[in-house]
């Protein structure tokens, strides 16, 4: 292991006409309780440490789906640089609208979101090369925790539901991606996260 971490740019800052960045996120994603992840089995891409190739859950655990509505799903999703004394980090804010307010929603979603620690995989509209930029991972390093929450009963946006903002503070990397081999394999792995093992 090197004693110093180099921060050297290794690519031109330009743009490729065939893969321009596209703003926004797809309307669905996954949320996992951080304790349910089998971190020891995580495999990172040997060529790119910002790509997680394999992410698996502990036995009997699974990821839960997040579905958002509207033209700008996950609106307000933003990452900001924090200037530190010795090292700079990133803070990711992920707003999630929960359009519901009943005992099941509060018990199973809102209360756990309020105090738990989570990892999310969200689908970017920027797909990258062969789909390697689609699945973005938040909370793998520090975990995402609630930083704000509102239940405005007269809100036209949430229709009386909840708006919870999850935050991963001081993440060492600006972005982590989930990608394995090709788009088909990655899609299959993403879908497999939703199914708990017996």
């Amino acid at each position, binding site marked *: 292991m090197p004693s110093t971490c180099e921060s050297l740019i290794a690519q031109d800052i330009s743009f490729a006409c065939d893969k321009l960045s596209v703003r926004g996120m797809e309307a669905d994603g996954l949320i996992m309780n951080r304790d349910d992840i089998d971190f020891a089995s995580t495999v990172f891409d040997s060529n790119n440490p910002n790509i997680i190739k*394999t992410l698996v*859950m502990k036995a009997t655990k699974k990821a839960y789906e997040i579905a958002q509505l509207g033209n700008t799903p996950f609106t307000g999703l933003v990452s900001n640089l924090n200037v530190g004394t010795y090292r700079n980090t990133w803070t990711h804010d992920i707003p999630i609208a929960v359009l519901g307010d009943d005992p099941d929603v509060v018990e199973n979603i809102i209360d756990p979101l309020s105090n738990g620690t989570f990892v999310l995989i969200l689908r970017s509209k920027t797909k990258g090369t062969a789909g390697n930029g689609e699945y973005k991972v938040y909370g793998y390093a520090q975990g995402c925790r609630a930083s704000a929450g509102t239940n405005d009963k007269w809100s036209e946006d949430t229709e009386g539901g909840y708006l919870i903002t999850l935050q991963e503070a001081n993440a060492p990397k600006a972005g982590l991606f989930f990608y394995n081999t090709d788009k088909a*394999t990655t899609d*299959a792995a993403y879908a*497999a996260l939703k199914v708990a093992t017996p």
Partner: protein
Amino acid sequence: MSLDEAKRILEDVRTRFNSAFSPADKDTIARLYEAVMGKRFRATTCQRCYHDAVIEITLYLRKNNIMAQEKAYIMKSGFVISCPDFHNGKIFTNENLTDEIAAEYLELYPNRKQFFARVPDKPVKKAQEPLKTDEVIKDTPKAKKPRKTKKTGK
């Protein structure tokens, strides 16, 4: 879960079929589906997916009258097999993974055992493949043509 137990639970759930299922019923249906069909129930946003599951279970039991066979190998949630050197890169998930394929994979890549939630103590042996039709014909000493029977007119 035994077959009789599954049928009893199914009958109980079906008594409430004409109304919306409670969260407890939904959990029961999901467990029943997994036990009977051998695959995970995936709740969608469809309003009647639990009712559809009850119908699917009913038809399956009526037709087969057996429970799904339990798998000896189960991969952890999120892991898929996708290896260019293994079955030409075919993607295997828990849905299409057989015990024989899993055993073959772990024989080739024993260090991938960590990605499995369930592995038997003794590897499942590959089932003997039936001989191909042309091999049967080639190996048979003299393949006799079937005799034509004459109609006796009786």
